[in-house]
C-alpha cells in the first residue's frame, strides 16, 4: 500500500505547530498503525530529519500510552481499538490519513503527537482509591460481592486512562474517565466508606484541571477503546449530588 500522511508537527508547547505531509510507500496491510509510523521514522532519521514523536509502550492495547486523532477520530475509526492495535488492513491503498494529537486545554502538547495527561493522575489522587494500607486487609472471602456488581465494577475498571474520551468530547470533558473510577469503586462493598468523599473530591479536581462539563453527547463512549458505558456518568452525577447535599 502507498499512503499520504498529514501529521501534526509541533516542536514544544510554545511552538505554533503545523500539518506536514509525508508519503509512505510499501506499507503492508498486516502492519499496525504504529509500525507504519516506525517505518516512516526510520526513514526520517536516515534523511537527517526529526522523527515524529509519539507516545506508545505496550503495543497490545492495555497500557493506554498511545493515542492519536486519526482522520478526525480518537484512535481512528475502528471501534474498541487503541491506536497500537489498529492495523493498516483497515485503510485503502492510496489513502490520505491525517494524524493529530489529543486536543484539549488540560492536555498541553509536549511535542508533535505527545501530550501531557498528568491531570488524570491528579484526579485519581483526589480520591480514586480505597484507603487500605498494606498488611491490614481481612480475608478476601470475608465480604462476598454479588457477581453482577463485581462484573459491572470490572467493566468500569477496565479504563486504560488513554484520554480518548477527552479528545473526542466537544467540551473537552473528563467525565467518562472520572466516572469510570467512581463507578468501579462505588459498586463494591469495600468502596462504600469513602464513596461520598471520593465522588465529591474527584469531580472537583476534574473541574479544577479545566476539563469541560458533560452535555451527554456520548462521543466519549463511542471512541473508548474499552467501551466504558455512558451510564457511569449518570452514576457519578448521582453520587456527586448526594455527596454535595
Amino acid at each position: 500500500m502507498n499512503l499520504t500522511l498529514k501529521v501534526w508537527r509541533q516542536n514544544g508547547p510554545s511552538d505554533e505547530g503545523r500539518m506536514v505531509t509525508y508519503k509512505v510507500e510499501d506499507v503492508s496491510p498486516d502492519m499496525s498503525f504504529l509500525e507504519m509510523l516506525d517505518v516512516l521514522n526510520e526513514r526520517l532519521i536516515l534523511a537527517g530529519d526529526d522523527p515524529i514523536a509519539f507516545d506508545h509502550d505496550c503495543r497490545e492495547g492495555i497500557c493506554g500510552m498511545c493515542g492519536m486523532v486519526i482522520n478526525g477520530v480518537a484512535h481512528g475509526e475502528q471501534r474498541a481499538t487503541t491506536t497500537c492495535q489498529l492495523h493498516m488492513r483497515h485503510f485503502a491503498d492510496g489513502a490520505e490519513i491525517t494524524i493529530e494529537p489529543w486536543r484539549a486545554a488540560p492536555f498541553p502538547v509536549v511535542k508533535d503527537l505527545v501530550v501531557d495527561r498528568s491531570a488524570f493522575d491528579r484526579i485519581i489522587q483526589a480520591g480514586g482509591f480505597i484507603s487500605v494500607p498494606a498488611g491490614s486487609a481481612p480475608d478476601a472471602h470475608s465480604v462476598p460481592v454479588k457477581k453482577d456488581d463485581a462484573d459491572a465494577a470490572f467493566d468500569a475498571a477496565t479504563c486504560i486512562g488513554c484520554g480518548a474520551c477527552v479528545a473526542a468530547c466537544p467540551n473537552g470533558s473528563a467525565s467518562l474517565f472520572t466516572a469510570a473510577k467512581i463507578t468501579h469503586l462505588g459498586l463494591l462493598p469495600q468502596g462504600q466508606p469513602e464513596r461520598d468523599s471520593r465522588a465529591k473530591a474527584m469531580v472537583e479536581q476534574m473541574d479544577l484541571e479545566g476539563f469541560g462539563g458533560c452535555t451527554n453527547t456520548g462521543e466519549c463512549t463511542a471512541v473508548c477503546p474499552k467501551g466504558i458505558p455512558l451510564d457511569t456518568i449518570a452514576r457519578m452525577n448521582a453520587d456527586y449530588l448526594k455527596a454535595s447535599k
Partner: protein
Amino acid sequence: MSDQTHGYKVGEPIRDTKAPEGPIEDRWDKRRFSAKLVNPANKRKINVIVVGTGLAGGSAAATLGELGYKVKSFCYQDTPRRAHSIAAQGGINAAKNYRGDGDSVYRLFYDTVKGGDFRARESNVYRLAQVSVNIIDQAVAQGVPFAREYGGLLDTRSFGGAQVSRTFYARGQTGQQLLLGAYSALERQIAAGTVEMHTRHEMLDLVISDGRARGVIVRDMVTGEIETHLADAVVLATGGYGNVFFLSTNAKGCNTTAIWRAHQRGAMFANPCYTQIHPTCIPVSGDYQSKLTLMSESLRNDGRVWVPVAKGDTRKAADIPEEERDYYLERIYPAFGNLVPRDIASRAAKNVCDEGRGVGPGGLGVYLDFADAIARLGRDAVEKKYGNLFEMYERITGENPYEQPMRIYPAVHYTMGGLWVDYDLQSTIPGLFVVGEANFSDHGANRLGASALMQGLADGYFVLPTTVGDYLAGATKFGDVDPEAVEQARDAVQQKIDKLLSVNGTRTADSYHRELGKLMWDYCGMERTEESLRKALERIPELREEFWNNVKVPGDPEGLNQALERAGRVADFFDLAELMCIDALHRTESCGGHFRAESQDADGEALRDDENFAYVAAWEWGEDGPTLHKEVLDYEYVKMTQRSYK
C-alpha cells in the same frame, strides 16, 4: 582460577544468602522479628528512591510511603499506571485452597521449586508461597474486581504446571487490575505527600558513596536535563530484559539500562541466561514487526494444541480430519496434556515446526483450537472466559478464532535472571535492593504461569518494606554523599549521551537492535549449543563496535528525543547480550528455560546436571571480562528429581 576458553574468571563462592535457619515454615517469621525497626519520627527523615512503577515498584513505593518514609518514585512512562505489569493477562497464584482441592502453602512452594527445575532457593520460594495469601486479601480490599461466582466468592482457574485451581483472575486483564490497585495506593501516597513522583524520567546511573547505594542519575525525558537524586537506599523495580531479543512480549520501552548500570557499579548479575519463551504468542507476520503479543496461557485450559500429522500439509485447519491431526502435548504428556509448563510447551512447538509440521506463513506456528470447548460449553461461555483475548487475536491477525483455530508460536516473555539478591532482596551493593522481575530470586530456571504477579506484589507489599527497614535502621550513621562520586556518575552519563549524538553514522539504533535480537534468538534462544553460543560471542562484539562507530542518532541532548532514549538502551543491551551468552555457554546442562541441545535425555527432554550445576551463577562485572561466583543451592525439603509431566 580462570577459564580461558569461556572468557571468564572464577571467584569466591557466595556462602551466605542471609536466610534464617530452622524449619522452613518459620524462617520468614524469624526474619520479620529479627529485622530492626525504624522509629516513626526517624522515618520522615529517611529517603528511599524506587525506580519503576510496575507491580513490584508501585506497591513498594506506596507501602514505604504508608510506613512514613520519604519516597521518590521514578518511571519512564507519562504516568505510573502504564508499567508493563499492566499487560499480564492470565492471573495470580495464591495458596488459598478456597476450592478445597488439596492446595496448601507447601504445595505452591513445591510446585514452584519443581517448575523452576530445581534452580530456585527453597527459603525464598517458601516465603513467596506464604505471603501469596495476603496478596489476594490486600488486592480485594483495594477493590480489585477479581472474577466471582454467583455466591459472591472468588473464582479461580488452573494454570500450567499445577494440578490444583489456585489462580485468581480478572477476565484476561489480571495484571491491569492488580497494577491499577497498586497505582491507586501509590497515588494516594502522592496526595498524602509521602511519595514524590517523577514521570518521564529514566535512570541512567547509580551513585555509590562509601560503598553504599546513595542515589541515582536520571534524565528528564521532556527537558533532557540530567538530574541527581540522593537517598539512603535505592530500590530497583525496573523489570526484565527480554527486549534484548528485540522481539518479545515486553513493552517497547522495557530495557536493561538501570540494572545493567547497577551491575557495572558492582551489583552481581545472576543467571542471565534463564529466559522464558512463552508458548502461546501470535506468530511474527513480517520484518516490520515491532513486538510480539501474548495470548494468555489460560487459553490452554480449553484450547487444544495441534499440528497436522503430515509434513507440509497446507490444507485449511477445517479440512484436516481428526485422525490426521496430532494433539502432540496430549500425546506426549498425558498427565498434564495442554497444561505442561511453559518451557516444555514452547520446545514441543519448536520441535514440531522443525519437523516441517508447522502451520501458517513460514511454517512457524501451531494451532490452538477451541472447537471442542465451544461444542462442549457453548460459544457464550467461551466468550465470557476469553472474549477479550479472542478480540485481540482477531484485531491483530484479521482471523476469527471462534471459526478457525488460533495460530500461535513461542516468543520471549520473561527473564528469570536478574540482579543477584539475598533473602532480604538486597544486592551485593549495600543499600541497593532489587524487586520483581529485575531480581533473580524466586523462579529458578523457569517461572510458572501466574507467578510473576505474585512475586512482584509479594516483594513490594510484604517483603521489601520489612527488610529495607532493617537496613535503614542504621541510616542516621550513613553520613553525607561524596560529591566526587556524584560528579563521576554524572560525567559518565553525559559522555555517553554526547558520544551517541556525535557518531552521526548511517544506521539507526533500531536497526542494530533488530540485528542483535535476531542473533540472540538464533544463537541464544529456545535451543542453545556450544557452537551457536561461540558464534554469538564472536559476532556481538563486532556488531557493538559497528554500532558505536556507525549509529545515527538525530537531534539534541535537550528536549524530548525518543531516538536518543532508544540508542542508549540498545548500547546496554549489547553488553548484556554478551554476558547472557557467556552464562549460557558455561552452563553445559539443560534446565528449565535454558536448553542446551547437548544435554537432553532419550525423549528430548531437558537433562539437568545436578552434580555440577546446582548453583546460582552470580557474575561480577569487570573491564577485562566477568568473574563467576557460585551460590550452591541446597534442597532440604524438595527432593531433586527429573521433572516429569507425563
